[in-house]
């Protein structure tokens, strides 16, 4: 729209109407957005084309005028009362006749605790479906972190709890504290920024996000989609210690480890130095004991070997004697004498053993040997 100005010499001047028209047309270029606030000063009259109310920010009391076509407002049957939390979808506009800025509502939704929880649940389902909370995504925490990043508010309790437990358990712990907003509309962005800054610092290999308990709304920034994603994407493992046991902000689900309190988070992050030293010393004692035992075993084996060496010559002699006796036994069993004992006789003629009747003739003299003694004989006949 063209806005006409009047020139008075070197001064360019707008009429009020032209100025308002100009502003109004500029505002029209702004996008349509959702705005959250509490309804106050609801004004509705049958003769008005629109319904008016003021949207109030419960955190800081900031106010915004809102208008909505009456028919549309009535059709929603919201029955709004003062203080009800709503989400308004609309675009900024200028009421030209009065130069009043307000939000032109296109849609309006009640947004109480129930709706809030439902929205959180939808976000949780969406991120879970993406696998952001999957157990296989969880990284192990370092056994001995070189440096620990700690994100807290200037809320002294959570910070003190973490630092006290860290240094009591592991005095050599190095901590880099990033203090930031942990409540209110700036908290999510501030925590994300601190998370990134800490993860870029040299040697930081685990980050603890610690925030004490608070109301549902106080903890909302820790369910902010951007923060939940930043924690899942953080290049170093993150421990989330936000709120109390019963609270489950979504950042708890995306973190690599979750702690019910700040001091539990500290215990997850560092080992117990005294226990560690004890374990090392125990190992060293075992080292000495084991080596000494191996030495003693070796000495005993040497002693045994020597004993056997000493016994060797006698053993050899005995084995030789046994073998000799065995041979003698076999020799005895095979000698002709044993055969004669069984009733056989040996017949010799001129010293040669007679094995056949044809080797002798009648009248020839032979010599007969028996087991005991013998006799001479003469051949009667041959066969």
């Amino acid at each position, binding site marked *: 729209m063209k806005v006409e100005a009047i020139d008075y010499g070197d001064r360019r001047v707008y009429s009020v109407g032209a100025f308002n028209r100009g502003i109004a047309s500029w505002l029209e270029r702004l996008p349509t957005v959702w705005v959250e606030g509490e309804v106050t000063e609801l004004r509705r009259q049958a003769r008005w084309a629109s319904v008016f109310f003021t949207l109030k920010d419960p955190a800081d009391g900031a106010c915004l005028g809102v208008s909505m076509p009456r028919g549309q407002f009535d059709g929603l049957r919201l029955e709004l009362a003062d203080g009800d939390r709503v989400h308004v979808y609309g675009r900024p506009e200028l009421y030209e006749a009065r130069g009043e800025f307000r939000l032109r509502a296109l849609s309006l939704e009640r947004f109480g605790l129930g709706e809030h929880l439902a929205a959180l649940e939808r976000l949780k389902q969406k991120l879970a479906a993406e696998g952001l909370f999957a157990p296989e995504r969880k990284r192990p925490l*370092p*056994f001995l972190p070189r440096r620990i990043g700690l994100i807290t508010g200037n809320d002294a309790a959570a910070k003190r709890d973490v630092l006290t437990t860290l240094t009591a358990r592991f005095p*050599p712990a*190095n901590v880099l*504290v990033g203090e930031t907003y942990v409540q209110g509309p700036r908290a999510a962005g501030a925590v994300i920024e601190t998370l990134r800054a800490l993860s870029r610092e040299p040697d930081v290999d685990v980050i603890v996000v610690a925030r004490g308990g608070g109301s549902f709304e106080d903890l909302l920034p820790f369910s902010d989609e951007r923060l939940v994603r930043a924690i899942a994407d953080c290049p170093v493992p993150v421990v989330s210690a936000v709120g109390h046991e019963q609270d489950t902000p979504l950042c708890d689900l995306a973190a690599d480890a979750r702690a019910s309190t700040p001091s539990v988070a500290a215990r997850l992050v560092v080992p117990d*130095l005294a226990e560690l030293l004890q374990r*090392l010393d125990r190992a060293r004692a075992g*080292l000495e004991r*084991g080596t000494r035992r*191996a030495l003693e075993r070796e000495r005993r084996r040497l002693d045994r070997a020597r004993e056997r060496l000493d016994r060797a010559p006698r053993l050899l002699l005995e084995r030789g004697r046994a073998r000799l006796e065995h041979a003698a036994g076999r020799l005895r069993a095979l000698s002709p004498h044993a055969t004669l004992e069984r009733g056989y006789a040996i017949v010799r003629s001129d010293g040669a053993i007679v094995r056949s009747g044809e080797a002798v003739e009648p009248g020839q003299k032979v010599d007969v040997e028996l087991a005991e003694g013998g006799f001479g004989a003469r051949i009667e006949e041959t066969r």
Partner: protein
Amino acid sequence: MNEERSFEDAQRELEEIVQRLESGEAPLDEALRLWQRGEELYRLCRERLDAAEGKIEELASRAETARP
């Protein structure tokens, strides 16, 4: 990341060595070698714990002092 990894690895190796030694299965020359390696690992772990000196710093104040 590998410095504290090596601590954990060193501690695990040390404890495995002790186990092997205490099982009594290692022959003497191996036992002596294991003992030497174990002592080395023990020293490594102790140095890692003794050398570290705790420090608590603030990210914001660091950024401020970093500025000229």
